[in-house]
């Protein structure tokens, strides 16, 4: 977005007078910008060139190339792997909706005022602490094998169900903390203004506090969702055939690791745009705040 300005920017002191001199002495400034762009390009080429040279000249490179970068295995395994990624997308989308709702509910419960709600606050706090303490894989294991193992009637057996359940429980704990920081960041005077107009505690939360809180936490929420997107592969451990499981199957069938590289490529292609979008949002918010500061 601001790439070219970013290259020319560093090192140039930002002063009003500087901008003027830049306009008066246009050509020298252009020269400086071109020169620093040139230096950036050159140092990048040299840096990555050296790394490439080290890797490609290493004694094991031919063997690694054969087992990780086999074009034929790549072409053969890509379709089934990309098809399996659809399962990850479903996992991600379903869990995300549930997480957004559950996380908000937990955040609100933890912020309930008054002595009466102590048990509710306590439960919500324990939930958040426990699920943030446990490694995600463990939660997936325990839920995915444990609950069906109980043999209770009416309890589903579908690993996909437990995958969604586990991801939702794990991420809701994190997301509720993000929401809570957002709610706490809304100044108490906003709630006071709403309450003094006669709005109930719930109405103030619903119409005044939470809309402002959610706006502020969208970037950190997106960050958590980048994590969720990647963590969908963890559910392969309880038998959901998703992208990672599929690449394992392809690897086992071809005795070649290239399918994992396909999977890696898929995640890079999907995640980087989301990460860039998040950065863009964060930047935009910061600019807005700077502009809004009085």
């Amino acid at each position, binding site marked *: 977005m601001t790439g070219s300005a970013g290259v020319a920017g560093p090192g140039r002191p930002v002063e009003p007078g500087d901008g003027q001199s830049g306009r008066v002495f246009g050509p020298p400034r252009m020269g400086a910008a071109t020169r620093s762009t040139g230096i950036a390009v050159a140092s990048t080429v040299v840096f990555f060139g050296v790394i490439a040279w080290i890797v490609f000249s290493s004694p094991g490179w031919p063997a690694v190339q054969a087992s990780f970068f086999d074009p034929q295995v790549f072409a053969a395994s890509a379709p089934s792997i990309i098809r399996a990624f659809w399962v990850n997308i479903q996992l991600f989308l379903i869990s995300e909706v549930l997480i957004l709702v559950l996380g908000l509910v937990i955040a609100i419960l933890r912020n309930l005022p008054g002595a009466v709600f102590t048990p509710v606050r306590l439960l919500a706090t324990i939930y958040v602490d426990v699920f943030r303490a446990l490694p995600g894989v463990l939660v997936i294991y325990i839920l995915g094998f444990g609950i069906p193992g109980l043999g209770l009637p009416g309890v589903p057996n579908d690993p996909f169900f437990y995958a969604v359940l586990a991801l939702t429980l794990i991420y809701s704990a994190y997301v509720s903390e993000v929401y809570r920081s957002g709610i706490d960041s809304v100044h108490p005077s906003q709630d006071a203004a709403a309450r003094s*107009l006669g709005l109930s505690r719930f109405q103030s939360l619903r*119409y005044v506090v939470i809309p402002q809180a959610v706006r502020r936490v969208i970037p950190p929420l997106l960050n958590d969702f980048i994590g969720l997107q990647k963590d969908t592969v963890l559910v392969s451990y309880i038998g959901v055939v998703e992208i990672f499981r599929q690449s394992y199957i392809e690897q086992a069938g071809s005795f070649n690791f290239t399918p994992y590289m396909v999977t890696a490529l898929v995640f890079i292609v999907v995640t980087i745009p989301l990460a860039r979008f998040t950065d863009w949002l964060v930047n935009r918010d910061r600019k807005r705040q700077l502009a809004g500061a009085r």
Partner: protein
Amino acid sequence: MTAPPEAAGTVALRIEALRKSFEKLEVLRGIDLVVREHEVICLIGASGSGKSTLLRCVNLIEPIDSGRIFVAGEEITAPGVKVDRIRRRIGIVYQAFNLFPHMTVLDNVTLAPRKVLRHPRAKAEVDALALLDRFGLAEKAREYPDRLSGGQQQRVAIVRALAMQPDLLLLDEVTSALDPELVAEVLNVIRELAVSGMTMVIATHEMGFARDIASRVVFLDAGSILEEGPPEAIFRHPREERTRRFLQRVIEAGRLSGEAP
């Protein structure tokens, strides 16, 4: 200005022996005050004298320690009183405007009528636009608060409180956060409200304004009402030494020009 002081009239607000402490600090030490309908009461006094706390107690935002508050004859400090229902009838405007930044001016004004009074959006908006128009803000209805000047924001905050058609309006140093050139437009709005008969309790540092507009001026000192009376009496012939000293300081600060107490 409009209502004769101490005249017979329906009592809009009665405060009896109100006490309030923050931790060990006693901020209000037994306040007694009667406000009749259409009266404009100006609370004056140094910072920390308890003006804001008194207003916040009347609006039930601050819980009180002891004493009683009646609005239109109903005790609002009685146990079991629904605070939301009381707050509907009492408007309060704060020093810092506290507009909702994520809503347009129109939504700021219509939120409470729609959600609390359950007015349909169309009716709430017609009413709100009429109010905004009355105070010269109609063309700002679709703007967000951060696009408005401080004076405009404070006028919107007043309109937002008026949209609930309160019986009583509390104004807590509403011009203190404004640039000097924006103070007049807000004071003019309050003047118009006074003329229209709105019952108001106003905490203010604008002594000239208090002198012009108040039916009665109440001087608060260290959490007690030291002196109250018509503005002429308070500003020209204060009985109490401390009132005199306070007004002297105000004059030295240039907030009440040419008026010797």
